[in-house]
């Protein structure tokens, strides 16, 4: 398709120097900048996770006091949610592969794309400042009145940081919607788009609609703090529960901002490594959009015991059940895709299967939590902690890891060490279950979350959980080695090492500055393995 001379020129060596990166308008380079940023944040959030688990190894204080623990728990949550999982897939893998998937030269608004990266950096800087300098210890949910009765303004700064980062995701979302509508290759209708694009598209809509609510919350908090207008503080005549409505109106859709793109990646991985057409393309595509739409109306399932009215609780419980259906459909479709396939167990596929395993457990426990009477017992216990780690880590993080290995050859033109990558997977997968499965049991037994110290009866399972966290750490260290080793010493990658059918595999590895050597034309679906 293209001459050897063309192939020596690619987006990585198109321009040189740090400045060329910081001012680049190339979606692929911006994607790589997101990759580095997010990995750095993940490292920081991960260190706090290990410290938390270490602290909980035994009853009583091990390394910090209660306030120190509360800060670590806040840092871990805020960093992982706002700086790792939300931007993780859309801004990093989405940025890099959405235009390639569509056969486009770039996103619709490259300058806005660069600006969104700077928004993330500025927002992260504000958040880190509030966390480390103002020592915020409110948990990542910063519920009022605790968060405003604290003397510092740290909580407002943290919300400001979250909003600026949220602005970054609004801009990315706008870009994705415009790109998907305007820049598809000739012949590509909506139903010829890869499912990763459907996932990103649904996510983009959520980002655009939900994030402004965070801004309103911020405004109200700031007005209360500086002008003494009572919105949330009962001392000023406000209602603390109102804050929870605002918070979850953003943060519940944010949960789907985290998981929908991950589901998109899984669709890509399962088809590519089963070498088979996806089962139920339209069902998966529409369920992404359906989940996005309904997810705006389920926020109150976080508040069954908050004091909201019983009628509200009933409606939220019912709607949450409705979200469960498309989620279940997707899972069945992925498993059915493997039926009569030709399955190859390379690390991306292992991660996809790991995703299915963990996400299924995360999903069924999610249904339990949506059942009101059962949630009364589980709410704010370790059962909830285990559930959302199964969804967020077992789901989103597994998908990111699978995606990184899948597209590594395309992004960098090199192959990684397959054996070491599988070893890394093994540690992460086993470690994950050792860490988080016992937490379901702890929660059922009644251990509340956000506890610096616990009853002696909870100690054995906490110990198991802590040991599991070390296994995860080893797994990620090996993973880091695989990536660095692949970058430095990896064998040259062919254009299409997995034999996948989506457009990005038709161009060279790594792709040229303008993505394709000649404009691709689409004649069939994205998974035409025949």
């Amino acid at each position, binding site marked *: 398709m293209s001459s050897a001379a063309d192939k020596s020129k690619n987006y990585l060596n198109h321009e040189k120097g740090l400045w060329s990166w910081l001012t680049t308008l190339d979606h692929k380079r911006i994607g790589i900048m997101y990759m580095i940023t997010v990995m750095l944040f993940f490292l920081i959030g991960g260190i706090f996770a290990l410290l938390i688990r270490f602290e909980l190894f035994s009853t009583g204080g091990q390394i910090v006091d*209660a*306030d120190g623990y*509360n800060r670590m728990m806040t840092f871990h949550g805020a960093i992982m949610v706002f700086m790792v999982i939300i931007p993780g897939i859309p801004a990093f893998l989405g940025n890099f592969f959405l235009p390639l998937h569509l056969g486009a030269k770039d996103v619709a608004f490259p300058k806005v794309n660069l600006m969104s990266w700077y928004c993330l950096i500025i927002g992260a800087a504000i958040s880190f400042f509030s966390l480390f300098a103002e020592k915020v*210890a409110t948990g990542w949910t910063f*519920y009022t*009145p605790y968060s405003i009765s604290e003397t510092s303004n740290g909580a407002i700064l943290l919300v400001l940081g979250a909003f600026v980062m949220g602005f970054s995701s609004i801009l990315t979302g706008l870009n994705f919607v415009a790109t998907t509508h305007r820049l598809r290759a000739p012949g590509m209708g909506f139903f010829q788009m890869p499912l990763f694009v459907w996932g990103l598209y649904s996510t983009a809509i959520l980002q655009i609609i939900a994030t402004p609510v965070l801004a309103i919350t911020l405004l109200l908090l700031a007005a209360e703090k500086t002008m003494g207008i009572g919105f949330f503080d*009962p*001392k000023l005549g406000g*209602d*603390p*529960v109102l804050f929870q409505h605002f918070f979850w109106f953003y943060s519940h859709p944010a949960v789907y901002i985290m998981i929908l793109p991950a589901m998109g990646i899984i669709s890509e991985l399962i088809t590519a490594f*089963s*070498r*088979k*057409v*996806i*089962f*139920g393309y*339209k069902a998966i595509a529409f369920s992404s959009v359906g989940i996005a739409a309904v997810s705006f109306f389920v926020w109150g399932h976080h508040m*069954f*015991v*908050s*004091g909201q009215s*019983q009628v509200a*609780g*009933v409606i939220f*419980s*019912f709607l949450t059940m409705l979200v*469960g259906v498309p989620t279940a459909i997707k*899972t*069945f479709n992925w*498993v*059915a895709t*493997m*039926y*009569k*396939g*030709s*399955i190859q*167990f390379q690390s991306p596929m292992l991660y996809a299967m790991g995703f*299915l395993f963990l996400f*299924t457990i995360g999903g*069924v*426990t999610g249904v*339990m939590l*949506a*059942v009101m*009477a*059962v949630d*009364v*017992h589980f709410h*704010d216990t370790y059962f909830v902690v285990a559930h959302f780690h199964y969804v967020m880590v077992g789901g989103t993080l597994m998908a990111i890891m699978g995606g990184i290995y899948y597209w590594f050859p395309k992004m960098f033109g090199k192959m990684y060490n397959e054996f070491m990558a599988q070893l890394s997977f093994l540690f992460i997968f086993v470690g994950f279950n050792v860490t988080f499965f016992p937490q379901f049991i702890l929660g*059922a*037994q*009644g251990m*509340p979350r*956000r506890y610096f*110290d*616990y*009853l002696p009866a909870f100690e054995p399972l906490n110990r198991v959980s802590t040991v599991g966290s070390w296994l995860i750490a080893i797994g990620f260290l090996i993973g880091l080695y695989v990536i660095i080793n692949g970058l430095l010493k990896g064998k040259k990658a062919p254009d299409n090492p997995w034999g996948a059918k989506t457009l990005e595999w038709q161009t060279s590895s790594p792709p040229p500055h303008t993505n394709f050597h000649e404009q691709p034309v689409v004649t069939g679906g994205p998974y035409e393995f025949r």
Partner: protein
Amino acid sequence: MFWVNKAHAGNTFMPPQASNFAESVDTLYGFLYYSSLISCILVIGGLVYFAFKYKRKTASDKTAYIPHNALLEFLWSFIPFVIFLVVFAWGWKIFYDMRSAPKDALEIHVVGQKWNWDFVYKSGRKTSSEFTIPINTPIKLIMGSRDVLHSFFVPSFRVKQDVIPGRYTSLWFTATKEGNFNVFCTEYCGTGHSTMLAKVKVVSKAAYESWLENNPYKGLTLSEVGQKVYAGRCIACHNVTNVKKIGPGFAGLWGSERKLTDGSTVVADEAYIRESILNPNAKKSVGYEEAVMTSFQGQVSEEELTGVIEYLKTLK
């Protein structure tokens, strides 16, 4: 239901069943638990089975082209939907019961604050960090908070409710087992969140009656309680006038500025008096360097402590 009985509760990791709600919640949970287990076995089992059965054999394997199957897709949308509706309605039913306290329930007020729980009975009796209730009697807790959000959680009763400053929330239950059960705070409230624990003591109705009767302070106001405590325990070293005995006289003490041996001054407010009773040597006043007072930590109840403070306020 056949798959969940009391012996089985252990297998699903739930704490002991000690209230009227425990069994029905556990039955529903048991249904969810086993249907989840079956779903996981089907999905994960299918995954593993296909993975081995359809492992790639040659590099040029051909695969079947199966883009969809209407019947299958209908079934696996419809069946989960029905199950979800069932558990939704079932959960609602029990939740409705949890929110419908009987009119004749025994009411106890609960006050949460950083970081302990106070309990106030109709008779005026106050306890702290533990409260006593009769078995097989509907109990309604009417709860408020003095500062931030807290949440009142008794795992063995399967009840939980957030406690909110500025308004009242409530929950009810009937304890069905005698014994002591843990109360946890489950809404993050700062430094002492994980130590904001309490005990609920479930006793027989007779024992509850006699516990109520034996209240030495029955019918007294708080400052009267304080006066009684004073007459029994403080009188040896403290006058009710402002004349020094071994320790300072009590009249005029309340709200006065105390010069401490370390040079600082402190106002004699609730916190100071409380500390001076529980930990007398922490802040010694000038002129009392040699005075010895033993700690009353664990010797006085919360009610007695508050009583003494209230009594001091009346001594002008």
